[in-house]
């Protein structure tokens, strides 16, 4: 398991390739990459604030819960903070397992929990001003799936 909280960019492809390199017990790898999306075509940047003392341990607990629920060979979470431009990668999750169901479900679970339980807050800065992204009820409800 690896959890990295960082301001700098990461290379999702290199992370994916390095994730299970050389292993022959892994049959399935699922990755999720979250990217800064310019919904209205006027986004200048996405600012991501986090709670430094809590972030790493909160994510590690979420990953441990995923490892407890599914038979995973490995799991990786990278999440950035700071000011990010449209098209920039925000975060990444990767899961590895013998079979595809465990890899898919664990990645989906990790995303749902990171969305609503990891201490990050997004603020969109456009030409018209800056607004905190509101949490969606659908994201909170998604936790009931697990």
């Amino acid at each position: 398991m690896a959890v990295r909280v960082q301001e700098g960019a990461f290379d999702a492809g290199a992370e994916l390739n390095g994730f299970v390199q050389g292993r022959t017990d892994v049959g399935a790898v699922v990755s999720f990459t979250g990217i800064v999306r310019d919904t209205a075509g006027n986004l200048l940047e996405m600012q991501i604030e986090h709670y430094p003392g809590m972030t790493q341990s909160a994510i590690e607990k979420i990953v441990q819960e995923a490892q407890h629920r599914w038979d995973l060979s490995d799991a990786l979470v990278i999440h950035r903070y700071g000011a990010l431009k449209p098209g920039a990668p925000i975060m990444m999750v990767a899961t590895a397992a013998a079979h595809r169901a465990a890899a898919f479900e664990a990645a989906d679970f990790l995303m749902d929990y990171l969305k609503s339980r990891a201490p990050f807050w997004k603020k969109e800065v456009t030409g018209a001003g800056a607004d905190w992204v509101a949490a969606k009820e659908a994201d909170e409800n998604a936790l009931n799936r697990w």
Partner: protein
Amino acid sequence: MNVMYFAWVRERIGIPQEAVETDAATVSDLVAELVAREDRYAAAFADISALRVALDQELSDFDAPLAGVREVAFFPPMTGG
């Protein structure tokens, strides 16, 4: 006790954290003390249902006791991922 504020809670109160001397028994009691201080606190805590609280870096709730707690953080629902 160290009290921290994030996102728009931080912006409304105007500072990211502060040391607070308090005998508040629960999180709700602490909120009541802060709200009584100044309008900016009242503005930040106007709707408690829109807020979350962490005690010593663990998600908790507003009924939780503060005995032994060293760090309290207030923030809106998280929007990671």
